[in-house]
C-alpha cells in the first residue's frame, strides 16, 4: 500500500491494522506512535494520521483497502456500463420511428428527461436531509435508487459496514449515503451517455421525425412556452437547438390525419438538436454535477470516517501525548523460587541443656536462658570479639545451638561466622541454627524456610536449621 491510495482504502487498512494492533501493550504503542508524532509539524489531524501510516512499520500484506477499491471500482464500472446499456436500450426504444407517425416529443421528454429529473430532485432532497444531520440512509428506500442495493453488495464483498450501530454509526451512515449517491449518479450518467449515443447514432443512420401530440385541448402557444422554457439554458448559445413558434405549430400531429397530419415533414427532423440538448442539459449535466458533488462529500465523509474511529482517536492521543516512562525499560527475569525446604520435616528444638548456646544479634534475651554456657555475637562484633568467643568454646559439647532472629534475613556475614564456628568445633560437633520468632515465639514457617535454604548453601551436613519450640529447660 502506498500513500497514493485513495483515502477510503487507506482508512480501511488503517482501521483494520489498528484494531489488530490493539492487543499490544499500551506503553509499547505509546512509545512507537509518540516517536513518530514528535517529528510531525502539521496540525491537520488527517495529515498526521496519514504521515503516521507512512512511517509505521507494518507487514505489506494489508489487503482490505485493495479489496475495497477493487469492489468499488468493479461496482462503479458495472453501474456505469449498466446505465449505458439501459440508456442505449431505452433511448433506442423511445426514438423508434417506423415512418408512420413522428416521435412524440412530449412522451420522449417525459420518459427520458422529466421522470429521471423527478428522481434527481428526490435525491437532492435526501442530500439536503443528510446535510441537515438526518440519517437519510435510513429513509432511502431500495426501490428508489440503484445505488442503495449496490451498497448492499459493496458491504457484502468489500467487508466494510456502512450500517449498524457500532461506534461511529453517524460517520458510517454518512459515508454510506454519499456512496449511494455516487453509485446512483454513476448509473444516471451512464444512462444519459447511452441515450445520447442512441440519439446520435439514429440521427446519423436514419431519418427521425419528431412532433408533439396530446389529447388535451392545449394551444400550440402553450406548448411552445413549455418547449422554450426547457430550452432556456441553451437558447441563446445555440439558437438552432431551440424551437420557434412556427416549428411548434408545424409539429403538432393528429393521429387520425393521414398519413401523419403534418404538412412540412422535412421540418420535423430538426427537433433532434433540441432533444440532444434536453438530454445533455437536463439529464446528463445535473447528474454529472451531482456525481461530482457527491464524490466531494464522500471524500469529506471518508475523512470523518477515518478520524472518528475509536482506534484513530486513541492514535491521535498517542501522537501528541508525551511518553512518561517511569522506568519500565529495565527487564529482569522473575526469580524462580527455589524448592521450599520441608520446614515441617525439620526437627523442633525444645531442649537446649546438652548444647552450647550462641546468640546472634540478640535473638533472645539473657533472662530466657538458664544455662551458663552462652556466647553473644552480632553483626557489629569485631574480628577480635569473634575470635575470643570461638576460642573460649568448651570442648565437651557435641552440639552448638545458634539462636538467630527469624524475621531478619540470613546474611553472608552470618555464614562466615558459621564457617568459622565449624572450623573451631570440628566435624564431630553439630551446629543447629534455630531461628526464633518475635518475643521468643516460634518462628513463622516462611522465615525458617529462608534460613534453611541459606544454611544449606554451606553444604555441611552437620550444620542445619531447627524449628524453635520454645524454652523449656535452656
Amino acid at each position: 500500500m502506498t500513500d497514493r491510495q485513495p483515502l477510503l482504502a487507506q482508512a480501511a487498512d488503517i482501521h483494520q491494522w489498528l484494531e489488530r494492533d490493539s492487543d499490544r501493550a499500551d506503553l509499547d504503542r505509546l512509545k512507537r506512535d509518540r516517536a513518530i508524532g514528535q517529528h510531525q509539524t502539521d496540525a491537520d489531524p488527517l495529515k498526521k494520521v496519514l504521515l503516521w501510516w507512512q512511517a509505521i512499520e507494518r507487514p505489506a500484506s494489508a489487503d482490505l483497502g485493495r479489496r475495497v477499491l477493487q469492489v468499488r471500482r468493479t461496482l462503479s464500472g458495472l453501474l456505469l456500463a449498466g446505465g449505458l446499456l439501459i440508456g442505449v436500450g431505452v433511448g433506442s426504444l423511445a426514438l423508434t420511428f417506423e415512418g408512420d407517425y413522428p416521435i412524440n416529443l412530449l412522451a420522449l421528454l417525459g420518459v427520458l428527461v422529466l421522470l429521471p429529473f423527478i428522481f434527481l430532485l428526490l435525491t437532492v432532497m435526501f442530500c439536503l436531509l443528510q446535510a441537515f444531520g438526518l440519517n437519510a440512509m435510513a429513509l432511502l428506500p431500495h426501490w428508489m435508487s440503484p445505488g442503495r442495493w449496490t451498497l448492499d453488495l459493496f458491504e457484502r464483498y468489500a467487508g466494510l459496514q456502512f450500517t449498524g450501530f457500532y461506534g461511529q454509526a453517524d460517520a458510517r451512515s454518512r459515508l454510506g449515503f454519499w456512496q449511494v449517491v455516487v453509485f446512483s449518479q454513476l448509473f444516471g450518467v451512464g444512462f444519459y451517455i447511452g441515450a445520447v449515443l442512441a440519439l446520435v447514432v439514429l440521427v446519423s443512420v436514419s431519418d427521425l421525425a419528431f412532433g408533439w401530440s396530446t389529447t388535451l385541448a392545449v394551444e400550440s402557444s402553450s406548448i411552445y412556452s413549455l418547449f422554450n422554457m426547457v430550452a432556456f439554458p441553451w437558447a441563446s448559445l445555440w439558437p438552432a437547438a431551440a424551437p420557434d413558434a412556427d416549428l411548434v405549430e408545424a409539429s403538432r400531429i393528429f393521429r387520425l390525419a393521414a398519413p401523419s397530419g403534418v404538412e412540412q415533414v422535412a421540418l420535423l427532423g430538426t427537433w433532434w438538436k433540441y432533444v440532444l440538448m434536453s438530454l445533455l442539459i437536463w439529464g446528463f449535466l445535473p447528474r454529472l454535477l451531482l456525481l461530482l458533488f457527491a464524490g466531494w462529500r464522500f471524500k469529506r465523509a471518508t475523512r470523518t470516517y477515518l478520524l472518528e474511529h475509536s482506534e484513530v482517536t486513541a492514535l491521535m492521543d498517542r501522537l501528541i501525548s508525551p511518553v512518561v516512562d517511569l522506568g519500565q525499560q529495565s527487564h529482569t527475569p522473575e526469580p524462580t523460587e527455589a524448592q521450599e525446604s520441608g520446614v515441617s520435616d525439620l526437627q523442633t528444638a525444645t531442649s537446649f541443656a546438652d548444647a552450647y548456646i550462641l546468640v546472634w544479634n540478640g535473638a533472645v534475651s539473657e533472662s530466657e536462658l538458664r544455662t551458663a554456657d552462652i556466647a553473644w555475637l552480632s553483626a557489629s562484633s569485631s574480628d577480635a570479639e569473634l575470635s575470643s568467643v570461638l576460642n573460649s568454646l568448651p570442648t565437651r559439647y557435641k552440639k552448638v545451638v545458634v539462636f538467630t532472629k527469624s524475621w531478619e534475613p540470613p546474611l553472608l556475614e552470618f555464614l562466615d561466622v558459621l564457617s568459622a564456628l565449624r572450623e573451631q568445633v570440628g566435624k564431630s560437633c553439630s551446629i543447629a541454627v534455630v531461628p526464633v520468632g518475635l518475643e521468643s515465639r516460634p518462628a513463622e514457617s516462611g522465615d525458617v524456610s529462608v534460613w534453611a535454604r541459606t544454611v544449606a548453601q554451606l553444604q555441611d551436613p552437620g550444620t542445619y536449621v531447627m524449628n524453635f519450640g520454645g524454652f523449656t529447660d535452656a
Partner: protein
Amino acid sequence: MPDFAVVGQPNKGKSSIVATLAENEDIAISSKPGTTRKATHYDFSVDGKLLYTLVDTPGFQRANRVLQWLEAHVEDASNRVDVVRAFVAEHRDDPKFADECELLQPILDGAGILYVVDGSKPYGPEFEVEMQILQWTGQPRMALINLIGEGDYQEQWRRALDQYFSIVRVFNAMLADFDTRTNLLRAFAELNEAWRSDMEAAIKALRSERSRRLHRSATEVADALIACLSYTGQQFVDEGDATDGVAQSLRNALLQRIREREQRARQQVQSIYRHDRMRADETDLVLLDIDLFSEEGWALFGLSRTQLLITGAMTGAVAGFGIDALLGGASLLLGTAVGAAVGSLGSWFASDELAKTKVLGQQLGGKLVQVGPLDAANFPWVFLGRAWLHHDLVRERNHALRSVMSAQMQDQENVMDQIPEDLRRRIAQAIGTIRKEGASSRTRSQLQACVEALFQLKLESELAGNKRPVYEVPPAF
C-alpha cells in the same frame, strides 16, 4: 539529573519500592533474600528527557567487614569518602564484597541515598553498621520505613534513623496511593535543592499521565459498552425448521461474545495502567469473577427497580422540560410532568429479558432468526459497575504487588448506590440515545465523558461477597 540509590539490607522491600515508583511489574520481588545481585537503573523520562533515575541495589551482606576495613584505613573525618572510594576500587573484583561494591558505586557516582528498613520488624543495633557506612559517603540521605508485615515499630526505627538521616518517611510500597507516591518524590527533592526542578517536572508529568490514563480507560470502556449494545446474532433457517434451538444457541454465542468484549476492555485498561503481566486469573476474584450475566452480579452492580424508575423519570422529565421551555412556560410544566410519567412507566414496564428473539420471513424463502441486541434495562449499569470496580482496583494497584487482585464489599452494599443522581441521569440519556439511534460520534463522546466522570469517583467499597437479596434477574439466562 538526580540519581537515587535504593539501599538497605536484603528483603527490606527495596525492589518493591522501586517497582512501585517505576511502575515496573517485571522487577524481581521475592521472599528469598539476595534476589537482586546487580544494581539496576530505572530512568524516569518524559519524551526521552531524563528527569531522574532510581537505582535498585543488592543488599548489604558483610557490612561489618566493610566498616572494619574503612575504619582501619581512615586518617580523619575529612577523607572518609575517599576511603569508601578506595574500598570499592580495591574490592571491585572480590566476590566476597560484590554486593557492597554494587550498592556503593552509584552513591559514589553522586546518587542520593534512599535507605530502606522494614518498620514492621523491631529495630536492632546491628543496622547501625550500615548507617555508618552510608554516612561515610557524605551523600544526601533519606530513610524510608517500609511496612512489609503487620507489626509496627515505626517509632523505634524513627528514633534510630533520625540520627543518621536528614529525612525519614514511612512508605508502604504495596499500599501507597498516588498522592503518597508523589509526596515521596517531593521529599526526594528536599534532599538537594538542585534536584527540585527535575522532581517537580516529574510530579507534573505523573499527574498529567494519570489524567491521560483515566481518559483512555474511560474511552475503552465506553467503546466496549457501545459494542456490546450493538451485538446481534443472526442465522438463516429453512421454512419448516424449528427456531427455538437456533435462538438458544445464538443467545449463548451472543452472551459469550459480550463476555469476551468485557474481558478485552479489562485487559486494555490493565495495559493502560502498565499492568500487562497481570494474569487473567488475577482478576478472577470473588467479585470480578462473577459472571457478567449472573444473578449475583446484577444485584451487586445493577440499579434497583426503584433506582431504574427514578432515573427513567428524571430522564423523561428533562426531555419534557425542553418542550416546556420551547413553549415559554405556557404548558405549565405539563411537558415535564408527562415526561417524568412516561419515563418512569417505561422503566417500570421495561422487559427484564436480556435480548429479544425475532424470526423474520425472507423474500427468497426461509426465515432469519435474530437475537439481540441486548435490551435489558439494567445491562449497561451492570457493565459500567463492573468496569468501575475493575478500573478502581487496577488504578490503585501498585506494581510491587505480586498477589492476586482482591476486593471485598460490605453487606447490603451496591456499587451503583454511589453514583450521583445527575451523573446517573446523564448516563441513562446517553445509553437511551445509543439504543435508539445507534452510537453517533456525539453520543459516543457523551458516554465517554460520563464514564470518565464515573471513574473519577473514588469507589468507597470494601468488597466482600454480596448478601443482598436478589430483586430482579433477567429470566433468559
